């Protein structure tokens, strides 16, 4: 190849590679600096942990044309209003438990994980839990010992993972808090549990 065109030269592409890489990375850093405050705990998109003291709903937004979480009247988890620190401690216990029990290698959280079991993004709002009043205890009991409970018609069951009562309550708090995150309408067309009084 006897070409000496600038666009075919090694040094042109070396410089391009360096500038494109550096430039993209700088843009990524800037976007990260913009995004992180918007998803910090207590922001509009990711509410404070004390949101678990309230009813959380997932409602269709006429402007965005997708469902978005809304925070409703006070509706404390396990009947007890928690202050910010207590709420954080409980959600933290729950999040740590989901990691320690390797939930993500069967379930998805915010759609990420494995595909052997249902997505947990809106698990708190799932109709599976029956009524609003029985939901919390149902969830705790299920997480502690799912092996004998009815799951589905295909015989797939969650195993017992040695979750304590306290850890199970933490997991429920974590799931309730996670359902309040604004996920841009994911999951779409979700049908929530009846929560009206």
């Amino acid at each position, binding site marked *: 190849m006897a070409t000496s065109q600038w666009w075919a*030269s*090694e040094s042109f*592409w*070396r410089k*391009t*590679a360096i500038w*494109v*890489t550096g430039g*993209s*990375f700088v*843009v*990524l850093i800037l*976007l*990260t600096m913009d*995004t*992180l405050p918007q*998803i*910090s*705990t207590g922001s509009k998109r*990711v509410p404070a*942990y004390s949101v678990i003291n309230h009813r959380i709903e997932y409602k269709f937004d006429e402007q965005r044309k997708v469902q978005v979480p809304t925070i409703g009247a006070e509706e404390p988890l396990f009947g007890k209003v928690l202050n910010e620190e207590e709420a*954080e401690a409980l*959600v933290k*216990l*729950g*999040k*740590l*438990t989901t*990691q*320690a029990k*390797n*939930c*993500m*290698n*069967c379930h*998805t*959280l*915010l*759609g*990420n994980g494995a*595909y*052997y079991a*249902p*997505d947990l*993004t809106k*698990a708190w709002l799932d109709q*599976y839990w029956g009524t609003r009043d029985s939901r919390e205890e149902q969830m705790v009991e299920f997480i502690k010992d799912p092996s004998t409970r009815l799951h*589905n*018609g295909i*015989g*797939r*069951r969650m*195993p017992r993972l040695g979750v304590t009562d306290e850890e199970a309550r933490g997991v429920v708090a974590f799931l309730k808090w996670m359902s309040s*995150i604004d996920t*841009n309408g*994911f*999951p*779409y067309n*979700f*049908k929530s549990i009846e929560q009206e009084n």
Partner: protein
Amino acid sequence: MATLGVLDSANLNGGQRLAVKYFTVALVLLGAQVLFGLFAGLQYLKPDLFYETLDFNVNRMVHINALVVWLLYGFLGSVYWLLEEESEHEVAGLKLGNLIFWVLTSAVTVVVLVYLLVQVGPGKESTIWLINEGREYIEAPRWADIGIVVSVLVVFYNVAATFSKGRYTGIGGVLVLDMLALFGIYLAGMFYTTNISVDQYWWWWVIHLWVEATWEVMVACIMAYGLMRVLGVRRKIVETWLYIEVALMFGSGILGLGHHYFWIGTPEYWFSIGGFFSALEPVPLVAMVVHAVFDAGARHAKNSNHPAMAWLIAHAFGNFFGAGVWGFMHTLPQINLYTHGTQWSASHGHLAFFGAYATIIIAMFYVALQYWRGKTWMAGELPGNGWKWKWSLGLLNIGMLGMTVSMLVSGYVQSQIERAIEGSSWIGYFAAQAHPWFVQGMWWRELFGVMFAAGFVLLVWDLLTIGRGETRAMQPAVSEE
């Protein structure tokens, strides 16, 4: 000095002797990946299999962790393999590199044993430090993370110091910078936070910027080396292509990260950024196909190592279809809303990891064996017409394609029934999982998985025997220079 047809480490230079150790462990871990994948796939069909003994989450974790680690071992092996030739200098700090190989391998063994025997722990930070971090792909407990960082720093030192003392080629320069990025990015995944949006934000830095950026550049380096070695392409050509690929890969891949930021709580502007840049991600992969196929065609596919050349071509196409086409199919947010977290992802993941990475490492296995057996003949007219490598190539590729398409069919069912119609509820999830079309896909996946496993067994057999007792010396690639 070289003994033809006999596995003899005297045939290898220092870096290459270390490389074949990495390759050996990589092959063993590939076997583990296949085995645990078969278990996990079977659990979709027979849910009571190993219930509360070896549950799906354990099998799946070992399946994907074995994948990450065997590919990493394949990359490190490939780097040590080409290091002395590229730099024209002995590996600096090789003793330390050898020590680190044993440290890393012991750590991997302990981690896997803990995964299998301990599996889960209490909901405390100590579990994350000692047993399992519980974050997909980077489940390795924190102590192992630290071990990995130290190990890779040593490898980085080996590579950077060797190139500095010897000759800094274009491949060398890209490799050193890429490894620095690879190791730096891993740190982004090494902390705990309760805020799951922030957690997943950084978690994707590790997963995406590894798999869709730094790993792609790593294989571009290996491809450049492979084409020079196997086909005899001129350095100036492969290095110019390498720079083009780096520009296109990092130019699309770094901001393509945005396609993981649609649904985790992050702002809506990621729709446009992630959608646009990730839609460009296939472009460099097209370039690689053109590059590899053109170079092969220009030499009438005359090459010194037929199995390696075949796997390099499999890599070019596999990377394009698996990472490029299968990724593109569901990367725009408007479709991803329904496909995110379904068997679509599994389908894409399988073909992409195999096509982009497994293939090129298998090519390197063959290059290594050719030299290890004293630069033996590996072109045409192998004993039995080379049926073992040809059949294993066929079984592995058809097996993988079959699995991919099966999961895609299941993924369509899932995205429509569970996602679009039923709205991702528990009921909707199981309505899709129980659908005959979905179940059929899972059966076909397992069947093709068995075919893939047969291909793996044949591959091991071939690697153990190819070139044994061969009396013809390697026909060197015809260089243009």
